[in-house]
């Protein structure tokens, strides 16, 4: 690919033609054209280059906005009341303002992933050099960076190549964020288009980060049998000093592991992770432990389990330092993005830093050198552990009861609980000595601690819940498959046909955070339902942890019960947040490797293929973050539907099709150029589900695509109808919209469905070769 900043200097050179002295030659960039795939129409697209494609999607899936706030307070003209049609001082209305907030959220998310990747790339180039080769799967992967190739037209081969890719991403994020300034973009749909653009860039940013770290840290490389690693608080050996790493950027944690190995003390300590850092440390070092998602931070610290807390970036509770101080755990802030107010000790001697932290002279330090973080963390943990002796702030059971007796049942805890849990009822029972309701809350609590913040009696409610759930907490000893990274080209070749033809009913990608309405068990249940039905289930991040935290009746976790390959009935953990790129990457590779569509700079065609043919749907059941918004937006632009749990309504909009409007579902038949009805497939691009049951049913419908073969469609409908009957209690009311020919009818349901078709005055249609792009028509209608 390209090489930047070539500088040649020749002091003296004798040639047949003469003598050359003091020749200096500088070249900004050398184009290395060993990537011979033809360039498509939109390499490195600008903010508007794919706008027409966006508008096709956004007209098909109209936004239903749900403003979280009636006013805008982003500039000093405000606050402006935008209620019901009023415009603000800048002229903006509530529709555009709502969409603008989504754009800002997606930009924050994309910036977050991309800045993470930028740090990784800088660090790895410094350590290994620009020419360090990228390798994400050896001979099994030729398409190493499908998103990057698709969007930028660049085929990255070395760490240095990723520089150019990130430069593009950073520029686009800046351009989109600029559009959100007061007095810029005016239109809600154009804001949505910009959200899609920055979401697409987010996917590139994630891909860059993960392929860089897979290559340099030698993570599992597209390995379906990546190791099973320990998961859960109960898996931590509490007799050893415990180093707790929180966040998403693995670099300081690797400093810790390397130092411990060098000093041969790795068997004497426990290195545990929360949030995505947990995934990435186990991809590097299988003896590390995954504790859990962001929700577990307070419970782990308050239970006194951390002898030192190391913070990197993203999803780190901002009160960790205060909480750690209460249990005597020193803190190291290891990221420029999260300095926690600590003094920068990067250039101080290690001995001095260790002494200060062990003695308690300082509660925490900022260290921006990962190797130094490693040494300090290990030495401090080993010295502090025997002093702390698991000091914790959990009350005894008697104290729980005593606290509960002071509760006035004012309901403030429940009214401030994001899940509206019945905390007062649990307190009332606890006051009588029955803590079972508090134990039940432990199972579903997301650990935010908002209940405590409002308690007029100053009851440490969350600590009471942790104490009541202590037994369950220490029994959390499960298994997670270490993040395997990409899906290999070989796997794509094996299943590409069955997926596109509908014989594998679909790909269910479960990603994102832990803001679950009723605990993580829902994630496990959903994943198991689809894996048992031989869908391909892909998981990542906190969802991958929730999926591994429960066991079947034989005592197996999902990762033991189902294979780890990209295959029917497989449950694949791709890894951390940035590994979500491999899910989009797999979809792109189906279009490229199976369908032989050109990849390079050919975004619209590939997205059109995925949207109309590939039965994939994403689920972020507990999505809470701006990063999740950006990830979702990247999938929207690829035409992949995304589902979120009820808290996802706070993303302020849904992108939904109208199955009651037939014209909504027109596609072009690429064989003839005729406009035909492809049916509501997929029905929505971004939808919010209220319950697990509804979610399962909807996802089974959202994998339907216009080009399904009759055999594939019959299989998909069979699952949809069966799940609908089981979870909704009745037959679907829209089955006639998905049957194109009698052959689509599931054979075992023929009589029942035929009756419905007759009642609905159903008429047979053809199975199109569907596209939304006129240029894809092979023979235009005369």
């Amino acid at each position: 690919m390209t090489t930047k900043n070539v500088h040649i200097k020749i002091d003296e050179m004798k040639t047949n033609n003469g003598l050359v002295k003091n020749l200096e030659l500088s070249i900004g960039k050398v184009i290395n054209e060993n990537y011979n795939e033809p360039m498509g129409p939109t390499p490195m697209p600008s903010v508007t280059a794919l706008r027409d494609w966006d508008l096709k999607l956004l007209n098909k899936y109209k936004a239903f906005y749900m403003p979280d706030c009636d006013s805008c307070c982003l500039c000093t003209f405000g606050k402006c009341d935008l209620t019901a049609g009023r415009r603000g001082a800048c002229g903006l209305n509530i529709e555009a303002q709502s969409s603008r907030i989504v754009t800002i959220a997606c930009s924050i998310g994309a910036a977050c992933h991309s800045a993470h990747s930028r740090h990784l790339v800088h660090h790895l180039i410094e350590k290994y050099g620009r020419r360090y080769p990228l390798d994400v799967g050896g001979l099994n992967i030729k398409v190493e960076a499908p998103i990057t190739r698709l969007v930028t037209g660049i085929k990255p081969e070395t760490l240095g190549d990723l520089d150019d890719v990130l430069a593009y991403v950073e520029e686009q994020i800046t351009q989109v964020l600029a559009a959100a300034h007061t007095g810029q973009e005016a239109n809600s749909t154009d804001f949505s288009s910009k959200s899609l653009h920055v979401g697409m860039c987010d996917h590139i940013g994630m891909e860059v980060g993960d392929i860089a770290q897979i290559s340099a840290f030698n993570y599992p490389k597209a390995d379906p049998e990546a190791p099973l690693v320990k998961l859960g608080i109960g898996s931590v050996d509490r007799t050893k000093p415990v180093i707790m790493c929180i966040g998403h950027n693995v670099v300081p944690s690797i400093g810790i592991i390397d130092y411990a190995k060098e000093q041969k003390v790795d068997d004497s300590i426990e290195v545990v992770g929360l949030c995505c850092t947990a995934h990435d440390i186990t991809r590097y070092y299988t003896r590390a432990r995954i504790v859990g998602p962001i929700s577990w931070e307070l419970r782990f610290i308050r239970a006194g389990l951390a002898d030192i807390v190391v913070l990197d970036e993203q999803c780190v509770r901002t009160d960790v330092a205060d909480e750690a101080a209460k249990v005597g755990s020193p803190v190291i802030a290891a990221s420029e993005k999260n300095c926690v107010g600590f003094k920068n000790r990067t250039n101080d001697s290690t001995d001095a830093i260790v002494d200060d932290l062990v003695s308690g002279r300082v509660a925490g330090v900022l260290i921006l050198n990962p190797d130094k973080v490693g040494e300090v963390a290990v030495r401090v943990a080993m010295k502090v552990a025997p002093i702390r002796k698991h000091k914790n702030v959990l009350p005894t059971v008697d104290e729980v009861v005593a606290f509960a007796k002071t509760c006035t049942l004012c309901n403030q805890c429940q009214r401030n609980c994001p899940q509206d849990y019945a905390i007062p009822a649990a307190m009332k029972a606890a006051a009588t000595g029955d803590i079972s309701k508090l134990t039940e809350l432990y199972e579903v609590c997301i650990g935010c601690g908002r209940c405590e913040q409002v308690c007029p009696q100053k009851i440490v409610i969350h600590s009471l819940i942790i104490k009541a759930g202590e037994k369950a907490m220490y029994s959390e000893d499960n298994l997670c498959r270490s993040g395997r990274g990409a899906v290999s080209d070989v796997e794509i070749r094996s299943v590409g046909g069955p997926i596109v033809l509908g014989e594998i009913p679909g790909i269910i990608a479960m990603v994102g955070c832990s803001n679950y309405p009723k605990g993580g068990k829902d994630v496990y249940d959903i994943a198991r339902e689809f894996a048992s039905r031989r869908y391909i289930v892909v998981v990542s991040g906190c969802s991958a942890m929730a999926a591994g935290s429960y066991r079947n009746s034989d005592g197996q976790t999902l990762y033991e019960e189902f294979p780890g390959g990209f295959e029917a009935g497989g449950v694949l953990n791709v890894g951390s947040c940035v590994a979500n790129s491999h899910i989009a990457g797999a979809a792109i590779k189906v279009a490229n490797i199976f369908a032989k569509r050109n990849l390079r700079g050919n975004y619209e065609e590939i997205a059109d293929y995925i949207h109309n043919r590939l039965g994939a749907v994403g689920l972020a059941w507990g999505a809470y973050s701006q990063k999740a918004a950006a990830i979702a937006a990247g999938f929207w632009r690829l035409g992949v539907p995304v589902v979120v749990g009820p808290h996802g309504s706070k993303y302020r909009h849904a992108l939904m099709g109208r199955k009651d409007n037939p014209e909504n579902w027109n596609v072009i038949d690429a064989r003839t150029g005729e406009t035909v009805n492809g049916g509501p497939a997929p029905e929505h691009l971004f939808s919010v589900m209220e319950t697990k049951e509804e979610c399962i049913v909807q996802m089974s419908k959202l994998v339907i695509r216009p080009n399904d073969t009759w055999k594939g469609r019959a299989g998909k409908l069979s699952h949809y109808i069966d799940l609908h009957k089981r979870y909704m209690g009745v037959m679907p009311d829209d089955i006639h919209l998905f049957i194109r020919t009698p052959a689509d009818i599931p054979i075992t349901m023929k009589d029942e469905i035929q009756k419905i078709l007759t009642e609905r005055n159903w008429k047979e249609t053809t199975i199109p070769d569907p596209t939304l792009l006129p240029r894809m028509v092979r023979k235009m209608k005369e």
Partner: protein
Amino acid sequence: MSCEPWQCAEIAATKKANPIQKPEIAVAMMQKAARPIIIAGSNLTERFMEGRPAIDFIIELAKASKIPVVATAHMVGEFVKRGYHPAAFMNAMAIGQRVVDPTWMGLDGKGHPDLVIMVGMPYYMQALILSGLKHFAPTLKTMTLDNMYHVHASWSFPNASLEVWATNLKVMTTTFGGN
């Protein structure tokens, strides 16, 4: 009975719901509407009054008032197994999207609803859908039947105990002529 949002941070509204002080007032407004619909959410089987799930109270009210019900989430099965067939079932956002479309001709194809009555969704989700209706269906009236004040509705009952909630729903049912 407080007229602050049940979930305390949901206060970002400049236009707030009028509190319904008596259930008879709610009935009068429902009777005045030409094409009301009730949208019933998933919490109706999780919240109990007088030893019965809230869905039982809503079925009695729907039967007495003859107002068509849209069941959201997976609630259709819960209604059906209690012997009541809702007029429609669909995703909560999907019915919200239809209601803000002025060309939508309602569940029966005969006309757009003029009153949307919501009850029983997760509080924050119902609040956001009501916000969407407030902003983008400005001529529509909305009402909530929960015992939680919903700031974005046109009319909402104030925060109240389960006992008061049960009483309100029963009074409404009997006022409509039910048992």
